[in-house]
């Protein structure tokens, strides 16, 4: 189809493309290993791509999509549990498809996507442009448009090696967190050519500001910085990509190393482009949270035709009923049981009396007893749940038995064949497996490719694992103390490190606790206060109640007062950073000036804001008595004298500073009020504030109300002294 369109224009080049298209079948590489440990402990026993997603293995979704998108040749790269993957593909008949050949490439020592691609390069199987996806991608997009764009760019510029598929998503941090559990992604894209210029997928580590190379601005006429895009991890690559991986043998991660590497490297001039999809669906299962979200998207039919009631490949037929309820025809369901909306019940499952199931996926051949409550769970195949169990927002793998009265709190993961004892309550976010937790645990995600973590993922073959298992059972079964999962239970609860515990909620299938949502909102509010947050503009947190999730309505209410408040906060933040990172005065001046321009403020405002920042800094320093506080002020002012002086070219600014100080003493920093005169005197001594300013301030205040004159009165003596001094001077 692609070629036809080009050919009809009668261009020579287009005909070439047509020939080229005819010569090489469209190829794809599926990485059937994610090279991460996010699905532990489940992935110790079964590779991630074979985990059921709404009762069909993930890889079936990927393969079915590739096949329907017109890919003819697929190479499945298997690493961890490669035998299981190959066995599955063999059994499920993927190898015997007409016009769709599936070949497996096996490796036992690849520990990253980079290694995998280097290995594939050595095999010389890729002949033309290819699609690179991981085996956990769910999509229904049509590749023809993206491929056509990619090929056209390639014809014009052989350095355009890769096209990345992206999709719009709401930029709200809550949505991002609650949907896919990913970090904030920043991309700089040339709006004209769609070239990708900058990629940062660790937005949460940036502490709210983003530094771009200024070359980006000089080299390109226009750029757009976007944080509302979702990376679908679907790449259309040229064969050069493989050789690039071979040349740069230290490339491991597709995004962090390869994409960033290419973007930084300007010697070779390789370019990456983006293709945005609108109506079709594409997402990758990266963690339990995205597993949950994508399951729900499938049930809500966004991935049509990859939905449970369409037999896209080998999955058993279910019938769609009202309110998104999918039931296989041959289930045994008690009359008194209730099945809620958006629930899938696999074939051969039996459900007892008064059992309630809602928002869940139940696999094949499960037996669920009476009076069971299942809410938001993913129950895989052959699971036995006895009477009176309560399950909430959990993942229950194949062959698990839950004895009567057992309960799961939100976020629990029960790995294969675990037995939960009678009336045992599994605590929230815990992971239970028959395997002992590996002793060397990688808490640091950065090290996920390091050999120790992947060594465990790949080493035990299936039979080996089972032997190990049996041994364990034999030796440890009599000693029931070894298992921590209740009376008659079998399984170990994995310990999570202290730091990990805090983060568990991010990537679990359980709904995010309300307090965490509020925290995310607050973080985002704070971020908005910083100068580099692109466009996101929020009123000060005082106005935004912690419960309000959307802030759109407040944005309209912005006024000048808000502007000046925000300007002050930004100046303060800049100053804070200057203090922390030891930035020179010149740079601070530069930044404050740019802020002043962007908020359209007078230099008096700068002076006031900067002064209050300095005073706050002094206040933040530890102090016990007013005396110590005064000393703090003295030292801080000494340090930043030059900066302050820069913004005080005339009397007006100085008056502004005094007014500001007065305001502070009244409102935000009452500790200063007894020290007002002392500090004012000090400022006078340091030549930061001249006597004319103080006198003007005093005369200005004369007409004011009594309440406003507190500090004038306080400093009456000082002013008197000043006046006398000046008179003396005059007399001289």
């Amino acid at each position, binding site marked *: 189809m692609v070629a036809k369109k080009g050919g009809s224009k009668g261009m020579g080049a287009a005909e070439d493309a047509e020939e080229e298209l005819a010569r090489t079948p469209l190829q794809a590489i599926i990485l059937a290993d994610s090279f991460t440990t996010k699905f532990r402990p489940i992935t110790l026993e079964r590779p991630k791509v074979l985990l059921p997603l709404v009762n069909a293995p993930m890889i079936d979704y990927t393969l*079915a999509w590739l096949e*329907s998108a017109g890919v003819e040749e697929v190479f499945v790269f298997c690493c961890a549990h490669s035998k299981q993957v190959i066995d599955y593909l063999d059994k499920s008949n993927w190898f015997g*498809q*007409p016009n769709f050949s599936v070949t497996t490439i096996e490796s036992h020592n690849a520990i990253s996507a980079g290694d995998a691609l280097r290995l594939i390069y050595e095999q010389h199987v890729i002949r033309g442009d290819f699609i690179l996806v991981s085996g956990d991608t769910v999509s*229904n997009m049509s590749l023809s448009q993206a491929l056509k764009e990619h090929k056209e760019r390639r014809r014009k510029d052989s350095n355009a090696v890769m096209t990345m598929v992206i*999709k*719009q*998503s*709401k930029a*709200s941090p*809550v*949505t991002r*967190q*609650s*949907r896919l*559990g990913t970090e904030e992604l920043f991309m700089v894209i040339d709006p004209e050519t769609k070239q990708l210029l900058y990629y940062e997928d660790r937005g949460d580590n940036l502490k709210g500001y983003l530094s771009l190379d200024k070359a980006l601005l000089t080299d390109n006429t226009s750029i757009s910085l976007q944080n*509302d895009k*979702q990376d679908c991890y679907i790449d259309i690559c040229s064969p050069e990509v493989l050789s690039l991986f071979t040349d740069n043998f230290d490339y491991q991660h597709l995004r962090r190393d390869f994409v960033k590497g290419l973007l930084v490297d300007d010697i070779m001039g390789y370019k990456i482009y983006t293709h945005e999809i*609108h*109506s*079709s*669906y594409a997402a990758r299962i990266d963690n339990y*949270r995205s597993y*949950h*979200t994508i399951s*729900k*998207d499938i049930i*809500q*039919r*966004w*991935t*049509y*035709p990859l939905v449970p009631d*369409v*037999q*896209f*490949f080998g999955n058993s*037929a279910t*019938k*769609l009923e009202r*309110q*998104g309820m999918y039931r296989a025809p041959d289930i045994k369901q008690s009359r008194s049981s209730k099945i809620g*909306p*958006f629930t899938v019940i696999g074939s051969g499952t039996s459900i007892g009396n008064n059992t309630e199931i*809602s*928002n869940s996926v139940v696999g094949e051949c499960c037996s669920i007893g009476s009076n069971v409550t299942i*809410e*938001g769970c993913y129950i895989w195949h052959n699971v036995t749940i006895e009477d009176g169990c309560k399950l909430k*927002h959990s993942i229950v793998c194949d062959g698990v038995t839950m004895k009567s009265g057992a309960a799961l709190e939100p976020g629990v993961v029960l790995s294969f064949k675990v037995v939960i004892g009678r009336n045992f309550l599994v605590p929230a976010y815990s992971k239970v497996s028959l395997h002992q937790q590996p002793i060397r645990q990688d808490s640091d995600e950065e090290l996920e490719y390091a050999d120790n973590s992947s060594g465990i993922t790949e080493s035990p073959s299936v039979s080996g694992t089972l032997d190990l298992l049996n041994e364990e059972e034999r030796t440890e079964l009599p000693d029931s103390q070894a298992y921590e999962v209740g009376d008659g239970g079998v399984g170990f609860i994995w310990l999570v490190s202290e730091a990990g515990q805090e983060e568990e909620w991010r990537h679990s299938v*359980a*709904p*995010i606790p*309300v307090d965490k*949502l509020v925290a995310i909102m607050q973080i985002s509010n704070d971020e908005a206060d910083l100068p580099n947050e692109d466009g996101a503009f929020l009123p000060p947190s005082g106005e935004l109640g912690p419960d309000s999730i959307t802030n759109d309505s407040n944005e309209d209410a912005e006024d000048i007062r808000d502007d000046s408040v925000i300007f002050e906060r930004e100046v303060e933040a800049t100053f804070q950073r200057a203090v922390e990172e030891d930035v020179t005065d010149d740079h601070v001046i530069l930044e404050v000036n740019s802020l002043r321009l962007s908020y359209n403020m007078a230099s008096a405002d700068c002076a006031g804001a900067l002064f209050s920042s300095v005073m706050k800094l002094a206040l933040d320093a530890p102090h016990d008595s007013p005396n110590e506080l005064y000393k703090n002020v003295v030292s801080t002012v000494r340090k930043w004298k030059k900066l302050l002086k820069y913004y005080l070219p005339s009397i007006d600014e100085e008056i502004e500073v005094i007014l500001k100080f007065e305001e502070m003493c009244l409102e935000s920093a009452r500790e200063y009020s007894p020290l007002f005169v002392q500090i004012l005197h000090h400022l006078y001594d340091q030549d930061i504030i001249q006597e004319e300013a103080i006198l003007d301030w005093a005369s200005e205040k004369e007409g004011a109300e009594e309440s406003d004159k507190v500090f004038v009165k306080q400093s009456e003596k000082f002013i008197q002294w000043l006046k006398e001094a000046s008179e003396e001077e005059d007399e001289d």
Partner: protein
Amino acid sequence: MNALVNEFIIKLKKRKIEGSKTTAKLTAEVLRSCISQQRLPQTNQADALIDAIRGIGEKLIAANPVELAVGNIVRRVLNIIREEDVSLTAAAVGGLGISAGSDDEDDVKPDDHQGLSAAAVAAAARNTLRPPSLQTLLEDIPQSTAVPRTSSSGGDSEGKSKSADKNSTSKKLKHNVIEAVNELIQDIATCHEQIAEQAVEHIHHNEVILTLGNSRTVMEFLCAAKEKKRSFRVFVAEGAPRYQGHALAKELVARGLQTTVITDSAVFAIISRVNMVVVGAHTVMANGGVIAPVGMNMVALAAQRHAVPFVVLAGTHKLCPLYPHNPEVLLNELKSPAELLDFGEFSDCLDFGSSSGSPLLHVVNPAFDYVPPNLVSLFITDTGGHNASFMYRLIADYYSADDIVVKQKSIS
């Protein structure tokens, strides 16, 4: 053979084949090749063939239960096999009848018997199987009593003739069935023209025609009237969310028709100016109810309110012998919500991570509507115009009552 069937099944499963006409044609072609490759035993050939086709048909129907055209064609082919079988035995026995004693019936000449077309004999056979239909009563069929009588009369000599003709009949059955299936495929291919031929009788000068969505049959129908120098105007309701009406409008304008595109929701407002509603259908059920693209029920109700004739065009391959209340009839398919909403824009409403874990926003995108028979004024098929209440008779002409449930007999 299996490879071919499997490939077709996979295509059906993945919803790669769209439109009932294409589906019907492909189904017929697949079944034709199955029949030609089927090995037949010496005795009971028809039964063996029927059983084989039932086996395949069962799988095909299960592959995409929403596309009723598959089942229709499987049943049609089964009926063809039955009819050909009956006509073959009738011909064989009839041949016998000539030699045994043509004196039995003076009014029937031997030539008549031999010249009898397979279809006519089949129709005769049908008459014996069930009460006579209006159509068969009207059709002048020579000897409806020929079949039962000859079978009783030629008792002693039957075995002799069968052994002699065995080889030829075995080939003949297959050959005849394939011929008939070819005719069926031909019929499916030409149903548009057959229906379009009747356009002039229904569309008059200066009329306003309303249609919804895009149907090839409707397009051909309107264009045929245009070619016959009728001048009329067409209102096209766009048919959200797939907006196939836009494509139809484009096509009609290209053929020189005065066309107006309206939104689906404007149908009721415009219906009082319309002289006739002409629409296509997905399937016509045995009770005369219509499964049609979503929005059709609303159009039909509007037409009824303003007493505007509601005409449904449907090729005979769309006639389904099932009733809408049959459990195996899947009336609807829910498509992707992406056709209604942009996923990116609404991703914050589809939030599964917060609160109860179930989002407040649901999107339902059904593909079809069911229009009850009392709302349909007229059906126009390849064979002419019919009332909704007549559909069951028409369907009885094409399907055997034994094939309503397509299931292979136990493989004992």
